[in-house]
């Protein structure tokens, strides 16, 4: 519910839909995510006049927090991580709207309820609440249950809203995801649950839909008739960065593939939605997940590759191997690299392999989707052309943009052919500085637009697919050591073999 119709002055302005008055309650305000992402995002939304006039932020944590220290650390976080340097006057305004309420003890959530009621009175926030769980996943269910017990899940008087934002990961497998989702849905209606995959907040990811369905020239070619194969890469140059304990349980498959990579695949493979309505888009994404071909256990080694990074050099500096990282077992079998061949068994994609790879300590940070078009039916120019001449590459980060490769004649009397690239770069075509993903997602949650959030069935379908991989990988009883790749390289030789068997190679990124 928005109030745009009540205010004729909003019509035609940059933000026609004014966000309703609202209190954002951040669980884990003292944590890394809040300091690095959420508070800077709130500042930038405030700077861009996108927050409602009546607005408040309440931080919670279980421990005692010194008010002055908290404010100083949030300001320091904003100074360090905001895309804009905060101005004193705007920061003071945000700071004024910020308060802290501990939730420890048996009366903790009742105290939070009273605190929020008081804010409604003083700030005019109208009983609207957005609960943001920026905590470790283990705290999700207890917090949600407590919110329910305190009645904070129920819309208040005058049709106010109570929404819940949940960070990834939602579960570590299908069973745990279902269990957590059941808790979430026992307290909040599904329409009020906003599961974040911050990749969907990136401008370039949102542009995938515009690129596909806003242009007439690509979609007719976007199918098995014209596309030879698809490569999706999410590579990071960093290692586990102090998150060894978490990563040991997750691995790259749970950390990146189950969410970011499968979401990208859905956006590339989905059918055109009937509208831009949140559920229309999410329905189409779910259909892609449902069409993913299962991998039989006896074929898991042919269709997937897992590996761990060994010591090497990244960004000119020597780095340790994964099993030498802090909080990582020396006998660890957790994968830091995963590549696979997937198929979407439907009319559009029948027989087209999707090669997916994700890894840590690869040479650079790159996220890219590349569609390799089929060869021309007859090689008119003989050996001068390589057959697979056309590649459409969609670069998600960094250097966001789109390139199209095609063959061109080299000037001169001989019919020499050489590939050339037509390049579009966001940074040189738009003056507008794109907002951070969290700015867009926070604003959408405040506005009640769930398009860029993951629905329960999406989460569970993707876990169902990932679970079967783990079942296959678990057949050896956990005794086989994973192959290694040197940090700073593009992964193990087995990753190259995965494509070489199909007479293909990974794109050089």
């Amino acid at each position, binding site marked *: 519910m928005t109030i745009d119709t*009540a205010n004729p002055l909003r019509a035609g302005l940059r933000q026609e839909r004014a966000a309703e008055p609202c209190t954002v309650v951040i669980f884990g305000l003292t944590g890394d995510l809040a300091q690095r992402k959420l508070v800077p995002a709130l500042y930038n939304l405030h700077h861009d006049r996108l927050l409602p006039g009546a607005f408040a932020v309440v931080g919670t944590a279980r421990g005692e927090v010194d008010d002055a220290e908290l404010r100083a650390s949030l300001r320091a976080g904003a100074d360090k991580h905001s895309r804009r340097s905060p101005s004193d006057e*705007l920061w003071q305004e945000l700071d004024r709207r910020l308060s802290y309420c501990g939730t420890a003890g048996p009366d903790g959530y009742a105290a939070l309820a009273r605190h929020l009621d008081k804010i409604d009175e003083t700030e005019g926030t109208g009983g609207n609440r957005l609960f943001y769980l920026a905590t470790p996943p283990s705290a999700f269910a207890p917090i949600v249950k407590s919110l329910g017990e305190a009645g904070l899940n129920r819309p208040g008087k005058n049709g106010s809203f109570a929404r819940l934002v949940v960070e990834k990961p939602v579960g570590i497998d299908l069973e745990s995801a279902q269990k957590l989702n059941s808790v979430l849905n026992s307290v909040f209606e599904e329409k009020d649950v906003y599961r974040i995959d911050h990749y969907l907040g990136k401008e370039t990811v949102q542009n995938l839909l515009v690129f596909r369905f806003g242009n007439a020239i690509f979609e007719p070619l976007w199918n098995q008739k014209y596309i030879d194969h698809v490569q999706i890469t999410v590579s990071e140059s960093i290692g586990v960065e102090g998150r060894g304990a978490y990563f040991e349980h997750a691995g790259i498959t749970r950390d990146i593939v189950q969410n970011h990579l499968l979401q990208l695949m859905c956006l590339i493979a989905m059918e055109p939605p009937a509208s831009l309505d949140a559920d229309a888009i999410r329905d189409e994404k779910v259909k892609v997940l449902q069409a993913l071909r299962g991998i039989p256990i006896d074929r898991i080694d042919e269709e997937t590759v897992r590996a761990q990074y060994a010591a090497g050099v990244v960004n000119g500096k020597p780095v340790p191997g994964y099993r030498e990282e802090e909080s990582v077992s020396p006998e660890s079998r957790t994968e830091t690299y995963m590549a696979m061949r997937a198929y979407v068994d439907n009319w559009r994609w029948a027989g087209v392999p999707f090669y997916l790879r994700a890894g840590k300590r690869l040479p650079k940070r790159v996220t890219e989707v590349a569609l390799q078009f089929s060869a021309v039916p007859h090689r008119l120019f003989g050996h001068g052309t390589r057959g697979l001449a056309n590649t459409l590459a969609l670069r998600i980060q960094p250097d966001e943009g789109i390139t199209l490769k095609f063959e061109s004649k080299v000037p001169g009397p001989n019919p020499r052919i050489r590939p050339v690239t037509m390049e579009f*770069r966001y940074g*040189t075509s738009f003056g507008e500085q794109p907002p951070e993903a969290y700015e867009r997602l926070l604003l959408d949650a405040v506005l009640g637009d769930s398009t860029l959030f993951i629905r329960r069935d999406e989460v569970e379908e993707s876990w169902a697919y990932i679970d079967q991989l783990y079942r296959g990988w678990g057949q050896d009883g956990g005794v086989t050591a994973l192959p290694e790749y040197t940090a700073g390289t593009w992964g193990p030789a087995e990753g190259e073999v995965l494509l070489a068997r199909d007479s293909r190679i990974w794109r050089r990124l």
Partner: protein
Amino acid sequence: MSVDSVSSVSAIEAELDDLWRGEAHGDEAVLRSCVMNLIVVCADRNRAAETTTQIATLSGSYPGRAILVLLDDDDDRDSLTMYASAHCRRGAGGAQVCNEQITIEAGPKSRALLSPTLLQFLVADCPVFTWWQAGNAAENPLARELTGLSELFILDSGRFDEPGRSLATLDRLVDQADCGDHVRDLAWKRQEGWREAVAAMFDNAAHAALLGEVTSILLRTGPPAAEGCTSVAGAYLAGWLGSRLGWTVENGTLRRPDGEAVALRFECNENAGWEEIDAIRIEAGEGAVFGARRLGGGGDGVRLRSRVGTASSPPSIQRVGFPDDGRLLTRVFERPGRDPLFAGALELAAGIAAGENEA
């Protein structure tokens, strides 16, 4: 007028090709990206020099071909003087992105050569944006030609001589069927933040209900270029408010749809900057007051306050900004579509400014 413009255009194109070759170093790619043709028309050299700097800044985010036209009344040559240059900067991923600039100097005797020469220089299949900085566009034949040629015709009525006359002539220009939809006024764009701030005071449904009962508006602005206190900025803000609420203006008097008059008063704040709105105070119904006032200290925030009867809302601060011309241009480029609010607000603003001038 005996210039061989075709060979001159060829020479300039050849010069640009040389510049591109000169910018290429080793294996590093030079991106020749073109998202627009930007024609800028200036009437004095100082402004042309400032504009060249702004074009260079724009090139990082809006690469294309800029054609800077300097109309020099003291130039008695019968030919156009033309030269080419390039602005290069590091773009996304460290690649070098370059922007072309062609400068054309025209005196009174060579002005007839301008339009055909401009046509030859336009990069094909790229939109044409004209930034007019040479006085009152409504009364200039070149401006009329350029409005027909351009997807966007951008001017700044805040820099015209008198607000009343300039807004009236701009209103006529916009009314002309062949160009009305693509005229953009930086003076209007400059007040975007203020419009959002004023709108924010009425997001509360109870406050919005009082918009039909507005009785008076006080607008305090920085001194305009001309005498009096009616700045283009002030007239636009009042015009926008009135047009959204269905008001009319007659002999300088604003009337609500129910026929009741709305008292409009302008005040000058000598300490506020040119075309800068300093404060607005809106009274409505029985004792409701809504006010927004720029914070001191050179910041770009305003403090919003409201009181309805005895109930006061907590004050809040919102950023309104005062963007420079380069930033305003990028905003125009970012949203080049028709601005549905502009024509209605201009019509009312012209009536307000004309009425104030008569008073």
